[in-house]
């Protein structure tokens, strides 16, 4: 169980700093360091096992459907990285305690830091490709927080954004690559993937998978041409840079190369892409490192350059090259972290990082100067330090590569040039800053940093020396274990030693050293040569391009979505015409095999009336009231059609809804213009008529084709099981409240939401209340005709009785909650119309919102009730009960559900209409009334 703890302890640790505050700096630092220190201890416990070749694993299902497991492993490669991440991470925690000023929030800094550390640990320990990717994305996100830590600075915000964009896009590419690999192999389990190299290499999807994975690795490791984000990430506090750009963030990319090496390497494609990208990056970045004036800028470009070196080594087709790459990962992490810390100390103590201003600092800070000197020497590859060893190995491996055929000599030559540049910028870093005359005009008078700020540097430089002097003793075991995982076949014998005798690599090393010193001496010529080229700012270019993409998308959106409903409708209809029309074209003939039924006179009359009323609605639409009357004729005819074709429930529902709809539209029309102005051009009208005719034609054809073809329905099941399973004879109602009860529950919820939405829309609506109709005639003052009032009052109890009757018989005869609810609503609305809102409001002193909501609640709880009896949601039960004088009746839980439907319909309908009606009175909803209503 120790394995998950290595990941989870630092994750927990990201919350720990939040308990502390800025005033207790030492306590806070100790608290933060505790959990990662324990995690490091756990890692160290495993060291003997791992070095012996064991791979401890842990696996737990996470989302098995996706193949995502929380699977961890601790092999040699993970161990190498874990030691770097946790070891250097702890040193950084100590260093940051002295680096951060009183204004910087330490808890926030440490919290981000621990989050980042967790995600790095997750990457190196993941035993599942998808899990690896999850942690990979987490590093992008947490590094965004770290780089943008000083979010009050524009540079930091922009740098963070750029880093996130570039690495985030790489992350998406990586996911795509992993998905392809998972598809090829059939699993995301890391070991299986690593063991299936032959399968992957033979697959046609190898090329895209490789390119996508490399895109992920190269963006993360800042390889050319994606290197530009890294120098701008230097806007972060220096401890962040020291951590992200020595041991972690950018190393995640090369870690991925090492991790996927067994599965993806071995093809010419890998050899050329990886090697050449690394080589180009190494030289390109080294050249720019020489030109930078900012200390951190020099270090940033040198980081890119060294990452290029490591990438190149992973690309080469020799086994020792991979070992050299792993070795350089350790060495680069140690000397680069130390150098970043020195840059931070210089910045902290002297107030500037500009090489042109700094000079002679060794007089002020001799210890720091000495440490930085040693670290820079290691970076330059000076013998007796660790950087020398890996550089020698690198030069050796470039000599016998099969790449580029007859031009193979280019590789060692370019590698030597890269080393030469590395010597030159290392020398410049040390010589210009620490030597020379004492700088006088610095923002602050520098002095030595506190001991504990220098301590992490001392540890790192000591490592540089120990590894440099005793490579065989210190790192051989670790490298061997890591190489064992990275290389499939028997690993090569490792001979780490300072002295290999006089040979070509030594000569190349000497050339690089001498040439570097020479180049440093003539650097001013190089600077003036470089000034001829136009200066380019990667950040500006990047933001310019981002803005261009934004403008382009905005233009496209504006063109497609211009705010015209008519245009959207047009596109929609054209699409419908096209899709449905092309479907109809596939039919051999319109009329199907089924015999048609005979017509009778009544049907013809009904059909003609419906068609005329429908056309009338459209043609007379400018006179809105007339159009509305026509619409109601259509509604009534539809209701009759339902009655004619054996759908009594539908006929009743349609009839009730028709009444409610027309009342609603008439009320709305009172507040809207009575006539539609004539504004469509002739061409527009012709276009719309053609579209409408085309649409109507297609609907008719479709409907006819459907009606004349044999029907194969699942309804037999409902008809057979309605009585036995649902306890009701009215199959339509049983479907609504029982078989498909869940649909109905959703539907009444929608109804309730729509009513509440309308209630809120009407709230504080300010509308001009017309005093006359469109022809200037004043509205009648005789608001409440006595006859209607009397009739409606008399009708109310009758109507309520009818609705109860319809409700109760609904399960067995046409009726049910919907229809009963509508009948009740219509009866109450009639009262409102006949007597006016004031009169009705005074007598119906309850609110409709609770009724609608309680309806949905009852229906839901009826459904939940079946859980109590161990059944599925909305399972119904029924039984027969004998009631004195009435006889035997049947009661079903479906009836309770139907009650919910009934209440929702009544509540929602009245909520809509009564509130709309209120607008016509002095009691218009306002803020005050609203409070009262609630």
């Amino acid at each position: 169980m120790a394995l998950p703890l290595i990941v989870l302890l630092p994750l927990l640790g990201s919350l720990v700093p939040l308990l502390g505050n800025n005033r207790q700096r030492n306590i806070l630092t100790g608290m933060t360091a505790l959990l990662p220190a324990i995690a490091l201890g756990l890692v160290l416990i495993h060291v003997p096992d791992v070095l012996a070749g064991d791979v401890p694993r842990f696996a737990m299902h996470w989302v098995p459907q996706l193949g995502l497991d929380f699977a961890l492993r601790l092999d040699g490669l993970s161990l190498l990285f874990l030691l770097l991440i946790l070891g250097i991470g702890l040193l950084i925690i100590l260093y940051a305690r002295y680096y951060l000023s009183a204004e910087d929030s330490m808890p926030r800094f440490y919290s981000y830091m621990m989050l980042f550390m967790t995600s790095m640990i997750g990457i190196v320990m993941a035993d599942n490709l998808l899990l690896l990717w999850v942690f990979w994305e987490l590093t992008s996100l947490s590094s965004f927080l770290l780089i943008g830590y000083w979010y009050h600075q524009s540079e930091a915000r922009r740098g963070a954004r750029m880093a996130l964009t570039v690495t985030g896009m790489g992350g998406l590419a990586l996911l795509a690559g992993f998905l392809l690999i998972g598809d090829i192999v059939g699993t995301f389990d890391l070991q299986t993937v690593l063991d299936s190299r032959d399968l992957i290499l033979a697959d046609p999807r190898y090329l895209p998978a490789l390119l996508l994975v490399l895109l992920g690795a190269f963006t993360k490791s800042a390889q050319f041409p994606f290197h530009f984000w890294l120098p701008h990430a230097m806007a972060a506090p220096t401890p962040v840079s020291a951590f992200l750009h020595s041991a972690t963030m950018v190393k995640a990319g090369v870690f991925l190369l090492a991790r996927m090496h067994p599965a993806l390497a071995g093809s010419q494609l890998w050899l050329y892409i990886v090697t050449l990208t690394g080589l180009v990056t190494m030289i390109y970045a080294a050249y720019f490192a020489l030109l930078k004036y900012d200390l951190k800028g020099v270090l940033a470009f040198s980081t890119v350059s060294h990452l290029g070196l490591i990438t190149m080594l992973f690309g080469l087709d020799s086994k020792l090259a991979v070992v050299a790459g792993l070795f350089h990962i350790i060495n680069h992490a140690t000397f680069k972290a130390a150098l970043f810390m020195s840059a931070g100390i210089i910045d902290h103590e002297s107030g500037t990082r500009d090489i042109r201003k700094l000079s002679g600092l060794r007089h002020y800070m001799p210890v720091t100067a000495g440490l930085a000197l040693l670290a820079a020497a290691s970076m330059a590859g000076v013998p007796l330090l660790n950087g020398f060893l890996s550089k020698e190995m690198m030069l050796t491996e470039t000599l016998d590569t099969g790449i580029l055929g007859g031009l193979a000599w280019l590789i060692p030559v370019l590698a030597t040039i890269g080393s030469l540049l590395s010597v030159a910028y290392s020398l410049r870093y040390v010589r210009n800053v620490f030597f020379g005359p004492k700088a006088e005009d610095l923002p602050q008078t520098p002095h030595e940093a506190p001991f504990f700020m220098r301590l992490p540097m001392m540890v790192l430089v000591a490592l540089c020396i120990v590894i440099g002097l005793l490579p065989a003793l210190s790192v051989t075991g670790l490298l061997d274990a890591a190489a064992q995982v990275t290389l499939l076949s028997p690993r090569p014998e490792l001979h780490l030693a300072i002295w290999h005798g006089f040979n070509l690599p030594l000569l190349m090393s000497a050339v690089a050293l001498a040439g570097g010193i020479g180049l440093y001496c003539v650097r001013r010529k190089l600077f003036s040569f470089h000034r001829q080229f136009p200066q380019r700012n990667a950040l500006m270019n990047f933001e310019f391009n981002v803005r261009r993409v934004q403008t382009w998308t905005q233009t496209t959106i504006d063109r497609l979505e211009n705010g015209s409903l008519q245009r959207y409708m047009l596109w929609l209809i054209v699409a419908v015409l096209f899709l449905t029309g092309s479907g109809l074209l596939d039919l051999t003939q319109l009329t199907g095999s089924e015999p048609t039924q005979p017509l009778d006179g009544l049907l013809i009359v009904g059909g003609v009336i419906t068609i005329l009323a429908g056309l009338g609605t459209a043609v007379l639409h400018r006179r809105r009231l007339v159009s509305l009357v026509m619409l109601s004729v259509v509604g009534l005819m539809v209701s009759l059609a339902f009655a004619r074709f054996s759908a009594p429930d539908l006929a009743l529902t349609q009839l009730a809804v028709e009444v409610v709809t027309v009342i609603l539209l008439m009320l709305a029309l009172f507040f809207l213009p009575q006539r539609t102005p004539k504004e469509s051009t002739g061409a527009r009208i012709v276009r719309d008529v053609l579209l409408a005719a085309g649409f109507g034609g297609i609907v008719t054809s479709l409907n006819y084709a459907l009606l004349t073809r044999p029907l194969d329905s699942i309804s037999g099941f409902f008809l057979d099981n309605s009585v036995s399973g649902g306890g009701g004879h009215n199959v339509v109602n049983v479907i609504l409240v029982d078989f498909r009860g869940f649909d109905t529950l959703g539907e009444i919820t929608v109804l309730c939401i729509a009513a509440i939405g309308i209630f809120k829309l009407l709230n504080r609506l300010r509308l001009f209340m017309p005093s006359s109709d469109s022809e200037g005639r004043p509205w009648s003052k005789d608001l409440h005709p006595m006859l209607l009032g009397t009739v409606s009052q008399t009708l109310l109890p009758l109507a309520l009785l009818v609705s109860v009757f319809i409700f109760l018989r609904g399960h067995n005869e046409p009726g049910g909650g919907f229809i009963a609810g509508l009948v009740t609503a219509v009866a109450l609305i009639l009262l409102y119309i006949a007597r006016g809102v004031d009169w009705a409001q005074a007598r119906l002193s309850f609110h409709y919102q609770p009724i609608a909501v309680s309806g949905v609640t009852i229906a839901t709880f009826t459904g939940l009730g079946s859980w109590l009896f161990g059944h599925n949601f909305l399972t119904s039960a029924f039984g027969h009960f004998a009631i004195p004088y009435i006889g035997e009746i049947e009661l079903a839980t479906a009836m309770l559900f139907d009650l919910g439907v009934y209440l929702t319909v009544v509540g929602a309908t009245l909520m809509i209409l009564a509130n709309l009606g209120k607008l016509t009175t002095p009691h218009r909803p306002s803020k005050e009334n609203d409070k009262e209503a609630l």
Partner: protein
Amino acid sequence: MEALFSTVTGFLAASGLYLALRGRTFPVVVGLTLLSYAVNLFLFSTGGLTTNGAAVVGDDATRYADPLPQALVLTAIVIGFAMTAFSVILAMRVRGDLGSDQVNDQREESKEEKS
């Protein structure tokens, strides 16, 4: 009978669509209502046109209409009412807040005014 039924559906759909393409809110709402009638009829007819065969299980009944489309259409009618209500109230609100009952975004016009 089938031909007449589908012709009616088609005419209702065409009239509804023509209204839905108008530029003012009220005709659009009326058009949507008309369209929903057409859609309901269409949906209903997918179960076939049955005479004298209400889907109420009884001893003497010989044939039943397909109950499933009926159940679907019943909910569609109620939902259609909710939609009509919501859109017409929205139209009122738009008129109250923006002072216009046009369906098109006013942005376009303000752009034209500027240019």
